[in-house]
């Protein structure tokens, strides 16, 4: 009897004691610094770049200490942030994509930065690249600052182009790019040894091509989804043909996180593809003794108009006043001319301030590495990010349609028609 009681009690005790004893210790820095967390979903060189900037910031002053917390990808950041807000234990600052940033801001989860900006004489908001800065402006309030800009550009192998006698200017339109890809593809029996071109998996590349073709997401009055218009279908069919009929193009898909992205890069670096469409941010991972960059093509007689957008840094409403001030200092540091220029040099992403181009190190770098200016050029003619009125349903319909076209080789017309129906239904639901 005695042993039995002890046995049961000890089991309960283990649980209770550890539950109670857990209520101690809260984080506070010993040297009087304000400690804040910065959450970001970046990997590889970008992740290391963020850590480097954090270290520089922490060493540059002794009021604030930033602790960087990396997540697997953007989605993981979102999930974790949602839980953190529910628990009221939030990081002070976070890196967000445009759509979730809008969603969080509208829900009141992000702190308005307008007063901090006004009170800070040397912040100079007018120096930011207008299109990027406006992404963070919602109903006249500034909710987030652009941390770095991004756009999709072309990367091609100089050696293969030279060998085939193709001038880089042939990348000026999609039509001539297609001809070049045909010429560059090497087949060995039924299998392809070298692909002429590799678009990146997902709808983004094809959306860009459609936009360059004059396509629009929504009608003027915002009541009709236009993603099955001829401008869309033509552009998308182009990729389907390249991948499935001509087999001059290929895509990598699936896998963990950014796996498909790196597989595509690897194909080009290893000489299994002559070029690919990738993010400006890939430049940090690429070897430009082999590759060169080129702006995205337009179509015969049409100007290119791909998307360019910025990843946003935001501050959480639930952070304390001290933490918010500290977080603003950190975001300001990250976006000052020297740092945004430095970030751009290391990653290839687009600097967010106009004055970055006057930073000596940037000037010097751009002279030696002309590819750094390609995304910057493109940003000036680019289409700003699409804010999806359905909270992502239109984009999701395009994601599914892109799979059908790119992976399964279903005709663009059929895939986009289905997508339009789904998106239209979602749009009508939110407008009701």
């Amino acid at each position, binding site marked *: 009897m005695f042993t039995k*009681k002890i046995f*049961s*009690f000890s*089991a*309960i005790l283990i*649980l*209770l004691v550890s539950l109670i004893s857990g209520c101690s210790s809260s984080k506070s820095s010993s040297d009087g610094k304000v400690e804040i967390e910065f959450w970001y979903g970046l990997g590889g060189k970008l992740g290391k770049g963020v850590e480097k900037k954090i270290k520089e910031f922490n060493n540059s002053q002794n009021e604030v200490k930033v602790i960087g917390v990396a997540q697997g990808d953007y*989605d993981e950041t*979102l*999930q974790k942030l*949602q*839980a953190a*807000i*529910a628990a009221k234990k939030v990081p002070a600052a976070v890196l967000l994509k445009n759509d979730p940033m809008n*969603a*969080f801001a509208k*829900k*009141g*989860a992000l702190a308005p930065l307008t007063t901090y900006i006004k009170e800070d004489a040397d912040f100079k908001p007018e120096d930011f690249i207008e299109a990027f800065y406006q992404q963070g402006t919602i109903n006249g309030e500034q909710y987030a600052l652009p941390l770095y800009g991004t756009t999709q550009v072309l990367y091609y192998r100089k050696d293969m182009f030279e060998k085939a006698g193709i001038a880089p200017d042939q990348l000026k339109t999609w039509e001539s790019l297609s001809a070049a890809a045909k010429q560059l593809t090497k087949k060995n029996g039924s*299998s392809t040894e070298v692909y002429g071109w590799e678009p990146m998996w997902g709808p983004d590349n094809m959306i860009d091509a459609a936009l360059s073709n004059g396509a629009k997401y929504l009608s003027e009055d915002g009541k009709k989804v236009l993603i099955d218009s001829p401008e869309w279908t033509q552009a998308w069919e182009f990729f389907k043909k390249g991948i499935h009929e001509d087999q001059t193009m290929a895509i990598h*898909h*699936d*896998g*963990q996180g950014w*796996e498909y992205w790196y597989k595509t890069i690897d194909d080009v670096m290893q000489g299994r593809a002559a070029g690919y469409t990738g993010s400006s941010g890939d430049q940090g991972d690429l070897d430009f003794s082999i590759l060169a960059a080129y702006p995205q093509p337009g179509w015969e007689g049409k100007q290119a108009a791909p998307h360019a957008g910025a990843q946003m840094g935001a501050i959480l409403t639930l952070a304390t006043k001290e933490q918010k001030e500290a977080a603003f200092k950190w975001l300001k540091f990250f976006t000052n001319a020297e740092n945004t220029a430095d970030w751009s040099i290391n990653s290839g992403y687009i600097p967010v301030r106009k004055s970055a181009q006057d930073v000596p190190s940037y000037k010097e770098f751009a002279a030696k590495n002309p590819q750094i200016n390609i995304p910057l050029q493109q940003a000036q003619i680019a289409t700003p990010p699409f804010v999806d009125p359905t*909270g*992502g*349903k239109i984009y*999701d319909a395009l994601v*599914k*349609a892109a*799979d*059908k076209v790119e*992976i*399964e080789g*279903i005709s663009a017309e059929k*895939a986009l028609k289905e997508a339009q129906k789904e998106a239209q239904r979602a749009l009508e639901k939110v407008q009701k």
Partner: protein
Amino acid sequence: MSVPETKLKLIKGLVDLRNRKRKLSFTPILFLLPAVIPLTIFWLYPMVKSLLISFTDWDYVSPDYEYLGFSNYSELLTDTTFYSVLLKTLMFSMGVVIPSVALGLLLALMAGGKGREMGIYRTLIFSPWVTPTVAVSIVWSWIYEPKVGVANWVLNWFHLPSIDWTSSSTWAMPAVIIVSIWKGVGWSMIFYINALKKVPVSLYEAAELDGASKWRRLVHITVPMISPTTLFLIVITSIDTLQAYDQIQVLTQGGPAGSTRTILYFYYQTAFEEFNMGKATALAILLVIITAILSFIQFGLAKRWVHYQ
């Protein structure tokens, strides 16, 4: 049981409780609490909370919310997407449960014996279950590679045409099912080996004396004697597969073209990408109800064929 009848029983129970007070023992509570306390905190409370949120438009983020009644549920039940993911989930579940339970039994019968080599077989067969999905999925995506992957090499060897596997919306689901069976069959095997051991040897001896063939012994002694394990495996595997997410996320990310989007995939999307926690929790509750109905059916049918000692 009708409502008044339940009430009557409840009242009767309370009366009984008062009359039997001195006989009431503290002992069961001691046995229950160690599990019930964490269960309440980390399972029951979240479940009740999910149930409550499913009637609102709250998203864990906004400071305030509104009661919506059943509109989250009615929205789901009139949404074609819901039925398509439900169908996919059920197909996935069936596709995994039946082969992995049947194959598990077969392997247990073959590799359950004594001897060093049997131990090696068991270890090898069980090893997939041990491997973390994250690590092994990369290898599987190579195996499924349409042009140079091992899977198509094997098919071609048997003079069968190549399949696009995870690149085709027809074959992506079977591809995920194969990986799930591969990972789960060793698990069923272990349970069956355990169950087979418990079948009294005397029964076999008696049957052998009666001259029953090996096959008859299997059908008439082994299968009924291990039927509780079969029920257990079917119920547990069904529930697990209805909640499948990891292997799908890793192998196909719900694609291509949404062909492998299951209920949990839909849940993640609704909750963490669209921030529609109300609808997402309604979905979770519906999944619980669907699972409960299926389990209820399984238990009901089990009365006919499960044999407890």
